[in-house]
């Protein structure tokens, strides 16, 4: 499978603050990929970079195997459709916005009608064609913006927080649209979301971003602090790690590597904390527990374990994990 994008040694700063630091990232084509991370993690910046509406300070990017040196050409631009978190439609009708996109992309005029009809049907916005762009609701605006982004039939569709501020009906419509574009049209869909579950539910793959860096670790149990002599200090608790990195300020702990018990365990595990169980939630086929030990830890257990452990809210609970379960970055 070819890569839609390959990023190597990417660094991008805003006002002397590092917003993205990606040593290597390959994004396969023809898949839907969720870009996960908390607010300020660099998701929008990465999407803008992938849309070539912003430039990296350092590093090399390729688009379908072609190195993009300074700016992309018309043919390469046609491969990318980009919808920002708060899309902007130009004054005028919905149809005029789609026509503008086709005109700017150099699509022959005789194809405009057919392309516009296809995009409107795909996004279920045909009835909005003649509506003024200023009169659209939030959900309609997002779908029209997607229609405008797909009207020239790009291979890649980049969506920044497409599900934010949508009601259930528009949310469902948008999920169906993304799945249809990805599965039926074989497009590469990259969308950002701060909702981990939603991302996992729709996407074939996920990219986790924390403080501008990609991480293999799931976005649970990510703590900010400083590392000194194998001990990571979050300001509230100290966590043992094996890494000797000096410029690292984040750690992540895989929730499946955390063991919980009613009493402290007698084991070789370097990290052991006692806290209160504050949340029990169903997640996919697991159960997620949130335990407050000064920092909030998330632990994934099976529904059977939940029954066996006889857990209840506010009860005191111990958690333990090895220092090797701590990823420092």
């Amino acid at each position, binding site marked *: 499978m070819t890569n839609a994008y390959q990023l190597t040694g990417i660094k991008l700063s805003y006002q002397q603050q590092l917003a993205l630091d990606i040593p290597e990232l390959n994004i396969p084509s023809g898949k839907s990929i969720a870009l996960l991370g908390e607010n300020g993690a660099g998701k929008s910046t990465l999407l803008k970079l992938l*849309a070539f509406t912003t430039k990296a300070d350092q590093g090399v990017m390729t688009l379908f195997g072609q190195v993009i040196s300074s700016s992309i050409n018309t043919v390469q631009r046609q491969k990318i459709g980009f919808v920002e978190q708060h899309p902007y439609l130009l004054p005028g009708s919905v149809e005029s916005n789609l026509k503008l996109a086709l005109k700017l*992309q150099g699509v022959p005029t005789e194809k405009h009608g057919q392309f516009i009809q296809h995009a409107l049907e795909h996004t279920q916005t045909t009835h909005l064609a003649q509506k003024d762009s200023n009169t659209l609701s939030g959900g309609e605006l997002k779908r029209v913006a997607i229609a405008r982004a797909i009207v020239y039939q790009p291979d890649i569709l980049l969506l920044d927080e497409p599900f934010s501020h949508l009601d259930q009906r528009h949310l469902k419509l948008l999920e169906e649209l993304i799945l249809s574009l990805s599965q039926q049209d074989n497009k590469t869909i990259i969308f950002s979301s701060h909702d981990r579950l939603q991302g996992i539910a729709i996407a074939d793959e996920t990219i986790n971003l924390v403080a501008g860096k990609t991480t293999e670790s799931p976005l649970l149990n990510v703590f900010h602090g400083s590392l000194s002599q194998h001990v990571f200090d979050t300001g509230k608790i100290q966590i043992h790690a094996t890494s000797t990195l000096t410029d690292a300020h984040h750690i992540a702990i895989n929730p499946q590597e955390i063991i919980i018990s009613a009493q402290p365990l007698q084991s070789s595990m370097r990290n052991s904390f006692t806290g209160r169980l504050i949340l029990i939630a169903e997640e996919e086929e697991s159960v997620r527990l949130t335990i407050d030990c000064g920092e909030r830890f998330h632990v994934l257990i099976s529904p059977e374990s939940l029954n066996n452990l006889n857990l209840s809210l506010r009860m005191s609970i111990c958690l333990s994990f090895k220092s090797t379960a701590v990823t420092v970055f």
Partner: protein
Amino acid sequence: MNYFAESLSSAFKLIISFDPDIYQVVFTSVLISITAAIIAASLAIPAGVSMALNSFRGKGFIQHILNTLMAMPTVVIGLLLYGLFSRLGPLGHWGILYTPTAIIIAEAILIFPIMMNLAITAVRSADPRLVPTLVSLGAKPTSMIVHVIRTTRLAMLAALVTGFGRAIGEVGAAMMLGGNIEGFTRTMTTAIALETSKGEFELGLALGILLLIIAFALNFILSWLNPNND
């Protein structure tokens, strides 16, 4: 007081009677100013939009020059152009001194920095998502300028009207380069200066009133163009 009241009454009579001498001057003035405003706008607006959209070395310096030129006395522009267009000047062979063309050039130069600055402000005041959206849709530099102007057209029209207003009220350069020739280069402002010095106060006053009416109309158009005004 009588003198002023009588002059005012005579001035209104001249206006109402559609005195051909007065309206010839008004027509010349409006024609020269509209031409100057259109020429200046056709250069200043794309230049302003282009400057607002791009970052380049020396941008701050150009902005300083523009601000300085906005405050430049009109007689200085008149003086410089007089030197260029006079028979012994480097452009003397054009033979445009004491013609409407010379006034148009002077007024276009005078209002260029005003219009360019207004165009820059219009782009900066536009929705910050406009330019990134056009970039992501594949707009090339020229089509980018066209669509930014189209989207901010009311502000650009306001820049044109402001430039016209500045041009029609200009007197120094019009006097030096036009020579105040009756029926040819005599504009409202130069005519007011001349007629008043000749003692034809009511004629000057009539032109002054018409100039005020034009200024009022321009301000009315400007506030109508600004959607934020109630």
